[in-house]
């Protein structure tokens, strides 16, 4: 009896899938800080933990709860959320920012084209996210839509708990001004996205 118990514990110890906590411990042991990428990036926050544990499919009620929590992190600026679409193209193109190889404090990009089609003239775009071509033309550009786009870029998890899109404002990668410019890139009727 005792032996069977020990065997269970032993085999459980050796073969069970490691928990998210075990993985965090392994990463604390096996990673080191470099540049701006410090070890405080290793421990998971609640959202990362739940998404890892559920393989990005949290139960609906939990997802709703996460989204509400994340919504509260978004700092909406007062006044117009539409910046300058002409400046935004560069931000959308730029894939740098927040990496150990990036200069801390240097302006970061949004890596937008890595995953999305945006302006029609850029044909090297990724497909991890949906195409945003014609976004404003299809969806309108009223205050509610501006608020949605701003919020989505600031913290995508407020709209889809386990989205693969980074929380670009919340993580401190993009500034308020950069996000407003991106809002204009998607919504301004004069932007190449909508022409």
């Amino acid at each position: 009896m005792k032996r069977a118990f020990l065997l269970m514990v032993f085999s459980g110890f050796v073969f069970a899938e490691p928990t998210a906590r075990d993985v965090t411990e392994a990463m604390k042991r096996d990673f080191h800080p470099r540049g701006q990428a410090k070890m405080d990036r290793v421990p998971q926050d609640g959202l990362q933990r739940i998404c890892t544990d559920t393989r990005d499919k949290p139960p609906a009620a939990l997802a709703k709860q996460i989204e509400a929590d994340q919504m509260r992190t978004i700092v909406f600026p007062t006044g117009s959320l539409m910046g300058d679409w002409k400046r935004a193209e560069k931000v959308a193109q730029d894939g740098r920012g927040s990496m150990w190889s990036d200069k801390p404090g240097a302006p970061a990009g949004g890596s937008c084209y890595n995953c999305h089609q945006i302006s029609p003239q850029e044909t090297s775009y990724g497909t991890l996210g949906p195409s945003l071509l014609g976004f404003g033309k299809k969806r309108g550009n009223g205050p509610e839509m501006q608020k949605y786009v701003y919020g989505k870029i600031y913290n995508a998890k407020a709209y889809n708990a386990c989205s693969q899109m980074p929380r670009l404002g919340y993580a401190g990668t993009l500034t308020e001004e950069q996000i407003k410019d991106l809002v204009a890139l998607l919504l301004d009727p004069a932007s190449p996205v909508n022409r």
Partner: protein
Amino acid sequence: MRRALACAAVLMVAPALAQQKNQFADYQRMTAEGSPVELFELGGEELWKKPQGPKNASLEKCDLGKGPGILKGAYAALPRYFKDAGRVMDLETRLLHCMMTLQGRSREEATKQLFGNADRPSEMEYLSAYVAGHSRGAKMAPGASHPKEKESYQLGKALFFHRAGAWDFSCASCHGAQDKRIRMSALPVLSAPKFARPLIATWPAYRVSNSQFKTMQWRLNDCYRQMRMPEPNFASDSMVALNMFLATTAKGAEYRGPGTKR
């Protein structure tokens, strides 16, 4: 009406996707034909046979799992558990072990330049090319019987799906769904044998974008950089575990490397 439109959209997208998949076929064939990858195998052979370190010994007696000095099929059978080290090792971890034990070199000195550049290629890169070249045609069969091997696989798998860091990424954030791209680069689903096999069976590889030979540990290191994470320690259990997970997912594939990649 809306549904009909959506269907039409799907129909239009399907052929475009098929075309996308093949549009780089000519490029990939021509770059592979004109690849300088053999230079790295040659350079690696020289380094393998060159006496170095305090013991002035070459690596020719390094046991990569098939016995001292046996290269044939060795890479395809890695990672695996090594009794003399008491842990699971991948190719680079084992090479480092041999440099320290056979050549008497310090870890610090032997890892001074792990990832090379144009002016200073790395010893690890040359040696990886040379060793991997001896597994051409061998079936990928990483260790799978020792408890530590199973443990390593499980840790690797958990790491693959573990979301963390400034951008909440896991490996699966990019390598988890079919037919996706970053910019124009195809993203194979590395947790699925069908997609992992052709890819893993051609690493390590000459990478044309860096115009440099690149190892698996470099590949993982650069992924974590772009995942906005701190830097993984070279030859750590976590990196070996990820390699174990990938190699096990690709097991049964015929090794066709060292390859040539974008």
